[in-house]
């Protein structure tokens, strides 16, 4: 029996030891995920962390975010309700008709995109401050500039957004006034501009430089009257002139080359987000705008969605010789089964219009439509052969499936996937030149302004120079040049045209709310989920 007892004690001891060490231990063992415990250990991991701030920009090329709300709310783009397609709870119609609702998910996506980016910048600034190594000051300046860019977009879209710079704060932030946000961005840029790199080469491609920061500041000044009530034309002109005169950028002889699949070599692009179908997906305009059967034209891997279309009146501003004098030639117009005569603006590469073919050149057919009368009540007037016509019949419910010029600004890849490889242009020199023109025009220096506008017209190709410059033709030229580059809503507000009816056909009901300059509709409502998550946040005036 003695032996048994010994074994007993041994076993009890063994049991207890085992028990204490492992049987009640509830630490989580992580295998295939990253926590702060197993990350941020090497230089590569820090560079990768810096990348987190930039890769947030990948949301720019998606459907339903910042780009969508800016473009659909402007007179460039509409997504009409096409029979059974694209009603989607009316959120796209609301945007185009300026019936902004706080529960529109596009607004919340935008907010999350912007403040996700801001917060990533704050987090990384804090990390680099803690790390405090040789690279820290440069990285911090770059991150502060990137944060300023996000804030510039946030202030432009939502106006009174909260300013948060302290990563360690756990307070739920309250709104700041649009003026205060403007001042904050300005202060940040003033401090970081001297610290940023000035080179234009592989090391700065896709990253913020002094020139990008100056462009942001120039845009702040250009819109200062809208943002603060006080215009700053001279300051805008000064920044624009600095970029043009001392920056490493020149106009690209080919307008279209700035948006080609391989546009990385553009001498004109100041700041881009480098998309890639393999490494950096998310640029899916090919899906948003092309027709379902366009899959066969470009041998795409996926069926596109037949959504985004160009507003006809906007398209017409290119081909109308009275508004845009130039070489006359065949262009697609209206219902357009045959070409009409109009101005052949070199920038018509922005659009895909006219009859569509399969990749092998044969006729492309949309079997879902029938030929009918021109009122388009029953089907598409151009019939089953797919023809993108500039004509738009109505916004809802019976939008024609083939209606509207499609967005072809960025070259489509043959055999492409839903993720385009073109680098997304955020800032480019042409915008800076036209901004200088506008600032000069506002300051009364009309001759200088006219020369700058004509510089852009000359590059476009096929155009005659303007002989006089008016607010209207400056506005129109900016529109043609900057189509779908997220400047139109700003331009419309600045030129006091945002609340006008721009689609003046019978029964088009756009906008439902014609509004005066300065209307509360010039900023979007703060999204409902944000108000619920943060009770310190107040809705923008005019919205409930």
């Amino acid at each position: 029996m003695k032996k048994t007892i010994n074994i007993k004690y041994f076993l009890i001891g063994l049991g207890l030891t085992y028990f204490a060490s492992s049987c009640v231990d509830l630490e989580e063992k992580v295998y295939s995920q990253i926590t702060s415990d197993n990350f941020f250990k090497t230089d590569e991991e820090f560079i990768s962390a810096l990348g987190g701030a930039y890769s947030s920009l990948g949301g720019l090329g998606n459907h339903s975010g910042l780009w969508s709300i800016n473009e659909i709310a402007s007179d460039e783009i509409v997504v009409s309700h096409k029979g059974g397609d694209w009603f989607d709870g009316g959120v796209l119609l609301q945007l185009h008709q300026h019936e902004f609702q706080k529960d529109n998910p596009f607004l919340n996506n935008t907010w999350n995109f912007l403040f996700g980016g801001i917060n990533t910048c704050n987090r990384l600034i804090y990390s680099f401050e803690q790390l405090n190594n040789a690279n820290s000051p440069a990285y911090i300046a770059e991150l502060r500039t990137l944060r300023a860019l996000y804030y510039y977009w946030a202030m432009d879209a939502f106006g009174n957004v909260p300013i948060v710079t302290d990563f360690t704060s756990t307070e739920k932030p309250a709104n700041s006034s649009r003026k205060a946000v403007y001042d904050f961005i300005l202060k940040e840029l003033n401090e970081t501009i001297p610290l940023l790199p000035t080179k234009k080469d592989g090391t700065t491609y896709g990253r913020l430089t002094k020139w990008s920061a100056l462009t942001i500041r120039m845009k702040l000044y250009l819109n200062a009257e809208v943002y603060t009530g006080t215009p700053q034309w001279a300051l805008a002109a000064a920044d624009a002139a600095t970029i043009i005169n001392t920056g490493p950028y020149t106009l690209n002889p080919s307008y279209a080359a700035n948006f080609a699949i391989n546009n990385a070599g553009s001498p004109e692009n100041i700041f881009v987000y480098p998309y890639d179908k393999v490494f950096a997906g998310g640029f899916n305009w090919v899906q948003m705008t092309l027709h379902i059967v366009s899959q066969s034209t470009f041998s795409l891997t996926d069926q596109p969605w037949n959504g985004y279309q160009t507003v006809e009146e906007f398209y017409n501003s290119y081909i109308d010789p009275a508004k845009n004098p130039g070489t006359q030639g065949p262009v697609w117009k209206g219902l357009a089964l045959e070409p009409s005569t109009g101005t052949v603006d070199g920038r018509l590469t922005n659009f895909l219009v006219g009859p569509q073919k399969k990749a092998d050149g044969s006729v492309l057919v949309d079997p879902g439509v029938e030929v009918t009368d021109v009122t388009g009540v029953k089907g598409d007037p151009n019939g089953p052969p797919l023809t993108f016509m500039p004509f738009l019949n109505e916004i809802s419910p019976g939008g024609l499936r083939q209606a509207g010029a499609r967005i072809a600004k960025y070259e489509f890849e043959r055999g492409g996937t839903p993720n385009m490889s073109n680098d997304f242009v955020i800032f480019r020199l042409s915008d800076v030149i036209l901004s200088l023109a506008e600032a000069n025009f506002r300051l009364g220096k009309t001759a200088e302004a006219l020369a700058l506008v004509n510089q852009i017209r000359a590059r476009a190709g096929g155009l005659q120079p303007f002989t006089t410059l008016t607010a209207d033709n400056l506005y129109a030229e900016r529109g043609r040049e900057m189509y779908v580059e997220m400047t139109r809503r700003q331009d419309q507000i600045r030129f006091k045209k945002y609340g006008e009816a721009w689609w003046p056909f019978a029964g088009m009901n756009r906008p439902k709310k014609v509004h005066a300059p300065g209307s509360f509709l010039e900023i979007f409502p703060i999204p409902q989920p944000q108000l619920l998550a943060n009770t310190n946040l107040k809705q923008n005036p005019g919205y409930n």
Partner: protein
Amino acid sequence: MKKQGLLILCFFSLLAFSIGFSANAQQARITGKVTDAGTGEGIPGASVLVKGTTRGMVTDLDGNFSIEASSTDVLVFSFIGYNTVEETVGTRTSINLTLSESIQGLNEVIVVGYGTQEKKEITSAVASIKAEDFNQGTVNDPRQLLQGKVAGLNISRPGGNPNGGFNIRLRGISSFGANAEPLIVIDGVIGASLNTVDPNDIESMDVLKDGSAAAIYGTRGSSGVILVTTKSGKKGKAVVEYSGTAATENVARTINVMTADEYRALPGSNDLGSETDWFDAVTKTGVSFVNNLSISGGNEGTSYRMSLNSRNVSGVGINSGFDQLNARLNLTQRALNDKALFTVSISNTTADRQFGNDNSFRYAIITNPTLPIYDPNPQSPNFGGYSERDIFDWFNPVSIAEQNISDGREGRLLASIRGEYNFTSNFKAAVFYASQRETFWNGRYSPKTAKFGGGFGRKGLATVENNERLNDLFEATVNYDKEVGKLDMAFLGGYSYQEFFNQGDYTQAGNFLTDAFTYNNLGAALDFANGLATVYSYATENKLVAFFGRANFNIDDTYLLSISSRYEGSTRFGENNKWGLFPAVSAGVNVANLVDITGVNALKVRASFGRTGTQPGDSYISLLRYGRQGNFFYNGSFVPSYGPVSNNNPDLAWETKDEFNIGLDFVAFNNKLDGTIDYFTRVTSGMILPINVPVPPNLFPTTLLNIGEVENSGLEVLLNYKAIDKSDFKWSVGVNFSTLATNLRSLSAGDLSFGAVNYRSNFGSPGQNLTQLIRVQENGPLGQIWGPIQTGVDEKGAPIMKVIDGTAKDASGKPVYCNCDADRAQLGTAYPTINFGINNNFNYKNWDFNFFFRGSLGHSLINSYRGFYENTESTTVQNWNVVKTKYFDPNIKKAEYNSSHVEKADFMILDNATIGYNFNVKQGKSIGKIRTFLSVQTPFMFTGYTGVDPSVRYQDPENGDPLAPGIERRATYFTTTITTLGLNLSF
């Protein structure tokens, strides 16, 4: 994973430890006779057992017995249908005693957590279903055995997909988390997969319904517990049993669409010159064969049961079905003077599956009936000869199912060993180790000619997926029983350790030179070179550790009290809140023992309270994690970038459920009527849900928090009545029903909320994305279907919606419909007010006949088919076919979700009807029993619903969201009727 070795060490060390205590006492031989108290005749086959051991024997034909026992031993005499008697041996060498007949069912053994109890001792809501009461016919999933049998347990499988799973909900929605289904415990293995058990091997299924019964399983008990007991060998002659069935399966319900003639008559129709019945084209007659063979037997020391079960099933869908083989061994061995008992159970299941493709049903509904299946003309591009049209969201349904391959292979091993040692007649200890290994392989291929499934766009697309789910369980328990006068006490204490490990990989790649490889040669895909292939792998681990105990007190079988508690910790929670305490108390009084009530044979009232928990479905959710967020273009090349994908929440804690239950068990009218009535009310709080948080200060826009409170209450009634009980004719009726009321008390945490009103779910593409369907509202019931109320049709064919709010106005100041929450109304509720089952059993001489109805009343469904396709909008007509139910209105030309698409979905279905014949077998022949039967399952249904299946949808089939019930989606598998011919033999 690596702990497996340690667990086994733990197991054997404790076993050795317990054996160390072995001791012997003086034994003597006791003889005697057991007789019937009423007739005075001997009772043959009665069990005589030394209490606290597995040592025992059965009485001979005259009721005589002889057994070795010591003076301190207690002998337990029992026989089915009689009250059990215990006698202490003392100085006696001869014991004669009488057994009296018991009241119906009260001695029935009920399996409860970590043990068994007799029905009369039960003080919580527990339902026990024995093999003879199971649903009949072709039953491939154990869940189906219980369908409609237990009040409050709702089991549904919309459609007839042979590979589809059943949804189980006990007492409504107690959790929004991952574990909304009851915990499965198979022969003591907690969290075992029901797919490791063949339905033919199940002896009984016991459902722990209330909080007090489930609390011993603490953290996973909130949605109830189903205890599965498999058949085991009995002492005596070896028994060989065979059962075999052959069955055919046919489509029962679809949705009505236009015929070719009706379609052609529509204005704007697109006559493609042919005539195809697409429902017929995508379905076939399913055939299945099930064969089961078992061998069981035993002697004094050993008993065993081995079984082999094969199932060959082909479903009604093209290329759908499975072949399954299951082998099971249950072995019991006594040792060490019968003081030790070892139980080994091993089950291995393999299944080869063909998944077919549910989307072939979806597109069959909307395919133009004048389109031929195969295109008579050569095509460019080549779609493999199938007619394809270049239309958004349309694919040839036959091509979908015939060209795309989706195969699966599963392996499941469940092995357990239990060692029990009786130190004394009232003290025993046991250790238990179980391991479950599940592996899943899935291969899919979409050829270059398949427009659906990515093959066409990707030039052939192959996917191969492997997933492994492993879990190891170690438990140790101690039992101590004590009698003090009329007070019986039973104590249980235990420790439980369970470790889960999941691992898997996924590869998807396209661009093949040829379709010949299908999914078997991934390396041939050019996508790897082009960077377009998708590859990932993962591994996760989690653990549960628990201490538990229970005390039962029983005074003279009249006053009963049970107290239990489980203290459990999970790795999945925040570091501040990993442990939770789950107590329970229940009490009952057998009133019939105290007062005589005319006509009442037994009556027990009971009440209970229990707290249970739910652990989340994923690991690591309380941690701040970083995830790959694309790539960052750095100095001329892309480097991967990482950013936060979650916020940390060190306070993340158990979701808890507190439940009160009062119940009544009774037997009346000379054992003819018995029943159970339960009323429960349960409050679930601290549900783990993602909620929007501001960024900054947070890193990620949503955080998982413990949020909100839901209250459920309901009444459950179960009645069985033996209407006729003669020797050659018997008729019994069983009825059960349950009601449910829900109330979402709160859906907020501090100042965070989803808003007073919040919508879930999305109708979908084309055109009805962001269309809100199910409203979630604080202080309102769950499952509210909301939408605009249609009042008419305008001149363009658009539905006119009712203006409710009136604040939105048109240019002339007239109130207009605003497409906002204010202009929506509740259109129905997703949950039924009552679920019921009605069973009838007849026995006439050698014949038996059984039919079973079940149903649900009061729920509604959103009929998605009608919401999208029951209109004559020109593109609908031009592109697709038109759904045409009794609600069809030719004037409606716009697909826009509204009140007209929400339908009452009350139904009653004949679940199964079986007629059987038992052949007379002469005594002494080698065959013991022959039975044949014919069974039909779901041959007809009473319902006014026009969609495919009026079954209750407890969650959104598209994303599993339990807050968005009540939607019939467009890819519902057609329902089926199964006719089965079967044969049972035993030797």
